[in-house]
């Protein structure tokens, strides 16, 4: 596992132009299978985790997607869905997902290549792939948390879980406030 992480690599990741928390998440429609499309707006009303990764089949990506696959039930317990996004085509995604037994969709940011990664500020010009980047988008379609990992380092799922827990706590606070207000107006 590529856990070797130097200080330089860590600070290097800070220069990213990834869309930060508080930004509206740009909508997009991408192929999820050779004959199906998925739009971000379909997930409105629940949090969604976008996991950009450079390529199917490369070892660290495999580890990251395999890890997220295992943590998926926890994401779902927190009311969230997960999608992976890379510039690979739908057929490649299909083979990769089957091989790794992934239980979440992989979207093909394939044509025009990397257009969605560019919108989110995580396209690696010159390399033709996306950064290894995570976005947690809230139920209203606003980016709550984003993180760009050094490309060779699996970011793990802890940051995503913390962000989803935050969102759930906020939702609970808001709901209890609303019910209090409702009682008061009665």
């Amino acid at each position, binding site marked *: 596992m590529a856990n070797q992480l130097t200080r330089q690599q860590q600070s290097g990741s800070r220069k990213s132009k990834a869309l930060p928390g508080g930004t509206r998440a740009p909508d997009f429609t991408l192929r999820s299978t050779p004959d199906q499309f998925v739009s971000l707006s379909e997930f409105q009303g629940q949090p969604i985790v976008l996991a950009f990764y450079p390529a199917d089949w490369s070892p660290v990506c495999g580890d990251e997607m395999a890890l997220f696959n295992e943590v998926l039930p926890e994401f779902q317990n927190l009311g969230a869905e997960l999608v992976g996004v890379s510039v690979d085509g739908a057929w490649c995604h299909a083979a990769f997902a089957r091989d790794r037994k992934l239980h979440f969709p992989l979207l093909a940011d394939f044509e025009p290549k990397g257009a969605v990664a560019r919108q989110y500020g995580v396209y690696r010009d010159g390399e033709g792939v996306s950064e290894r980047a995570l976005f947690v988008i809230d139920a209203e379609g606003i980016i709550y948390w984003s*993180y760009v990992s050094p490309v060779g380092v699996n970011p793990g*799922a802890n940051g995503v879980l913390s962000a989803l827990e935050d969102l759930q706590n906020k939702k609970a606070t808001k709901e209890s406030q609303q019910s209090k207000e409702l009682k008061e107006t009665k």
Partner: protein
Amino acid sequence: MKGAQTDSIPATRLTVPVARRDHIQGPLDAPVTLLEYGDYECPACGQVFPIIKTVQERLGNTLCFAFRHFPLTNVHPHSEHAAEAAEAAGAQGKFWMMHDILFENQDALEDEDLIRYATALKLNARRLIAEVEAGAYATRLREDFMSGIRGGVNGTPTFFINGLRYDGARALNALLDAVTVR
């Protein structure tokens, strides 16, 4: 509404300290605690297994070694039953003996193999395999797994030395340096 901080580094500090709940070798209050998150079907874990044995021999009672399960069950189809078998053996008092056999036989982790190992260890093999098939220790395995996720375990093997994730090389000398310097 401003969102959370962008680009914060994920935690690499153990969130659930090594304690009585864990499978440990060596004294719990040893000056150095080495915790491994591992998967019995993971080849890299298999490679590091004899290295850990040597580290344990060299450090003796100054080291507490602990093992928590981190099976990647979709990639390693036998990892979950193997981890269950180790726990089931643990319930009969032989966790570490099963642990060793599993790592020494990573290419033979079918249920029949688990029964064979249980028999070789003079365990109640029928009870063991029934527990494995029922997923009797699933809650514990998930606790181990999630404690790893929250502490920054991204794959296996991942080590923590006195609660801090160790990101260095897994060669004997590097590991020995890491556990003796502290």
